[in-house]
């Protein structure tokens, strides 16, 4: 039976570690290494990257042998929408103000959930906006524009 690598837990984990480790070493090749007793800025990152790479290979090989599957499913939709909601917040706060950012983020984040009831979500957005405005802007006097960008 051909091992299903796409869902092989340790294979992917090992691959992730190995790739990051290799990247760490590659990106650090320009940094001066120095000697063990007089380490340069490149010593530590290179050593760490190499260690991670080796760990990665070990976990990867072990994964192929044990073929443990990833439990559950990959929640791609939930992940994408959650990440998007956070990104949108960062994008909108400076440009459109805190309140629009909160509203949009709440809407998109709620869409990542299993049920989406528009009325409830809008109400939640309003509640969060009012609460945040009260606590952060009026209470703590953080200088964030409520509506409209800087």
């Amino acid at each position: 039976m051909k091992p299903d690598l796409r869902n092989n837990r340790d294979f992917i984990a090992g691959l992730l570690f190995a790739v990051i480790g290799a990247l760490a070493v590659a990106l650090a090749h320009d940094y001066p290494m120095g000697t063990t007793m007089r380490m340069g800025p490149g010593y530590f990152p290179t050593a760490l990257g190499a260690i991670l790479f080796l760990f990665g290979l070990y976990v990867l090989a072990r994964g192929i042998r044990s073929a443990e599957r990833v439990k559950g499913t990959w929640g791609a939709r939930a992940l994408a929408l959650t990440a998007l909601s956070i990104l949108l917040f960062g994008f909108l706060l400076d440009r459109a103000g805190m309140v629009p950012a909160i509203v949009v983020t709440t809407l998109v984040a709620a869409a990542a959930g299993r049920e989406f009831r528009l009325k409830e979500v809008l109400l939640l957005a309003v509640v969060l906006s009012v609460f945040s405005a009260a606590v952060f802007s009026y209470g703590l006097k953080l200088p964030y524009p409520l509506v409209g960008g800087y």
Partner: protein
Amino acid sequence: MRPPFICRVLALMLSACAASSALAQAPYPAKPIRFIVGFPPGGTNDIVARVLAPKVSEYLGQQLVVENRGGANTAIASEMFVRTPPDGYTIMLNAPGYATNPSLLKLNFDSIRDFAFITLAAESQNLLVVHPSFPPRSVKELIAFSKKHPGDINYGSSGIGTTVHLSAELFQYMTGTKWVHVAYKGGGPGLVALLSGEVSLYFGNVPTVIRQARAGKLRAIATTGAKRTPAAPDIPTVAEAGVPGYEVSTFYGVSAPAKTPRPIVDRLHAEFVRALNAPDIRERLQGLGADPVGNTPEQYTAFMQNEIAKWAKVIKAAGIKGE
């Protein structure tokens, strides 16, 4: 069912737009002004801004709101700052990082042309202190001792590129001495290292180290400014004590984005100078080790050009590389 809510949101946004265009017609300042500080809260730079802000707010009749945008020794804040509209509603507190960044980092803005300099609000100096077990007691003795032990003496700093570090680099550059630099993350750890004797020398900022010096835990040698500091009039400057022409000062200056209308610059200048002359502000700034200045925009601009050029030379000679 849903329309009422959406209508409310739209109405809110429309009225905000209307309000802001109405504000543009009102006399300056018609709304709060953002006072950008290029460091996270807690540094002396930040504290100076928070000391000045309430007073200037009082004179302007509008709130000056301190906004911290830390990162890359003011470079991130500056990058954002030069893109704000030059309407007088955003100003920034400049710090020495400003003068050293052009030589250390690749910047997306011009450190002189993208700014309309308002005034040099205050200056402070560093104080060269040494651990009590370290033999030299004066600048001349220090130079002689250093020449006898090249590469043997450890000096501390609060980070590469800080005035603490660069004061020492300038000293070595001008006197031909060679010390070993041990960098720390910030003033606290650096001071601890000096107190414990881990390093022998430190160019610390005046208020922090003067207390320890007066208590006998450290020995003060000289100050780095052009003139003696009022906080310690009994301590000579490095220039007086053996290195003529030596000067390092930490400056706190105020600027606006370039193309800010001249009347607004003048108004801000007038109010800042007025605040700097207020006795309670003077007292607070001096408590922080900062001597109020308050010069003209032209003088400040010239000063900045000078600083950038001076530090470019020192940084190059010391071989300090940034990004």
